[in-house]
């Protein structure tokens, strides 16, 4: 039984309207998120990804169009947007740049404290959030934030948002700037969150990340939805994606290249695991003459 968590219709947004610097960021976008699913948002720089994401957690009231988040209508001037921001967590690009507390524990506690938690309940919430991202509570709570590695800082920032216990988690370029090991660690965390039932929205340039995480995908260009559908379907359209300034995941491109060279492997693999199976099947097929 799935629930429609976010419903966006005909969303338009112009930056600095009425000035000589006005620019249209979103030009009529429809978007849906149902409970339990992970939706990817891709598009080249300037396509409108970040603007769309910032509407989904109530940072902006819609200028034109409708945005319904967890049953709340964001066009309603009486709607307290802070409430929306606490039930939909948005993690910005390079969130470690937004850490402002000295100690990790304090920083993670910032959100829940504002929610009114205190004492033991606060501690528990912080412990819970830190465990979710793999930062042991006792080990890390008194560490100085600036002494953490890039990957650890990223996790701490993520814990800070998770500590609000949002029903939806939105991530803007979650693995940007991370070295490969930190990236894999973070992807594992996200998959675990997904398994626990959290609905995710992920915006990324990294097509491999999208292939690993997304069930459905929106491709933005020039503030509009150029392509959408099940991830598998969208990501296999290499030509189309390249024309939109993006690309298919490396595995898709590699398999296509193999096909062009005479290896007629079938299927629509997106990830290394799937490609391995597909190629193994192809090799098995060559066994019997």
């Amino acid at each position, binding site marked *: 039984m799935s629930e429609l968590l976010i419903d966006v219709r005909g969303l338009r947004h112009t930056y600095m309207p009425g000035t000589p610097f006005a620019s249209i960021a979103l030009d009529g976008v429809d978007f849906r998120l149902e409970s339990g699913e992970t939706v990817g948002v891709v598009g080249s720089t300037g396509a409108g990804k970040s603007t769309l994401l910032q509407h989904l957690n109530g940072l902006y009231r819609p200028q034109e169009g409708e945005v319904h988040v967890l049953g709340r209508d964001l066009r309603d001037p009486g709607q307290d947007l802070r409430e929306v921001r606490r039930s939909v967590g948005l993690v910005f690009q390079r969130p470690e740049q937004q850490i*402002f507390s000295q100690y990790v524990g304090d920083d993670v506690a910032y959100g829940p404290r504002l929610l009114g938690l205190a004492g033991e309940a606060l501690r528990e919430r912080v412990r819970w959030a830190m465990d979710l991202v793999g930062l042991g509570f006792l080990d890390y709570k008194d560490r100085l934030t600036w002494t953490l590695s890039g990957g650890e800082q990223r996790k701490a920032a993520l814990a800070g948002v998770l500590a609000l216990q949002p029903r939806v988690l939105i991530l803007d370029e979650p693995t940007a700037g991370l070295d490969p090991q930190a990236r894999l660690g973070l992807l594992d965390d996200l998959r675990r969150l997904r398994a626990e039932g959290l609905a995710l929205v992920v915006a990324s340039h990294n097509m491999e990340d999208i292939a690993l995480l997304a069930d459905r995908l929106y491709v933005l260009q020039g503030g509009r939805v150029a392509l959408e559908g099940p991830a598998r379907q969208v990501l296999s359209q290499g030509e189309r994606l390249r024309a939109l300034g993006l690309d298919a995941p490396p595995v898709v491109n590699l398999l296509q290249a193999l096909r062009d060279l005479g290896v007629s492997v079938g299927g629509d693999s997106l990830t290394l695991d799937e490609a391995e199976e597909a190629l193994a099947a192809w090799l098995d097929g060559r066994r019997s003459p």
Partner: protein
Amino acid sequence: MSEFDFLGQVTIGQYLPGDSPLHRMDPRAKLLMALAWIAAVVACRSLLGMALAALAVAAGLWVARIPARFALRSVWRALPFLALLAVLQVLVMPGNRTGAVLWQWWIVTVTTGGLLAGALLVARFVVLILAISLLSFTTGTNDLMHGLEHLLRPLQRLGLPAHELALTFDIALRSVPLLALEAERLAKAQASRGGEFGGAKGGAIRRVQQALPLLVPLFLGALQRAERLALAMEARGYVGGRGRTQWVALRMRSADYVALALVLGIAVAVVLV
């Protein structure tokens, strides 16, 4: 307008590209004009002179084709502060107790002299803000820097690091919109963590409280950016102003001299009237 639209609210340091006579003028002339203007407005003592100055600036904005609403935005921001200053001038400053007494209560005396001083103060600030905005609207920070450097160059023989100063000024001015953007980003990120920002319709104290957590990351970010820029400059062989050649060549045309003379004339008139 969204509560997060910082950049739209910061107009100093922003350049509005255009093709008006003011845009095309030599930056050295514009800098000298601005200097003369500031001196004149500060020295002016009469409302008539101030009115003349205001008229001249308005004419300048019109010639440069700057939309009035945009120009007035920076004035709007400063208004509460100005109002406070004006009130102080009128009510409290003893030196202004000249002319007829209009109202008296305890230590507070309102005189015509006081009112005049208050009005002059507000007018002075408004004209100054508009004039400086006019300069930055019509002159890219780039041209400003080149103009400044060329003006300071004769002083280099006396040991003044003209290029370094001009570069510092340029980077500082250029950073204003960048910092506004960065602050916007930080504010949004903190609002997304359940922060109070943008939610409470609080008074001034509240808003300062909200802004405090932004300061540390903003500062850190600015310092890190500065380090990266310095590294890039060194990588391209920058070692200061000595031995450098110049891409840009500035040349004053007769139109520039005429405009300069005109503005100097008006400036003198403003002071003397």
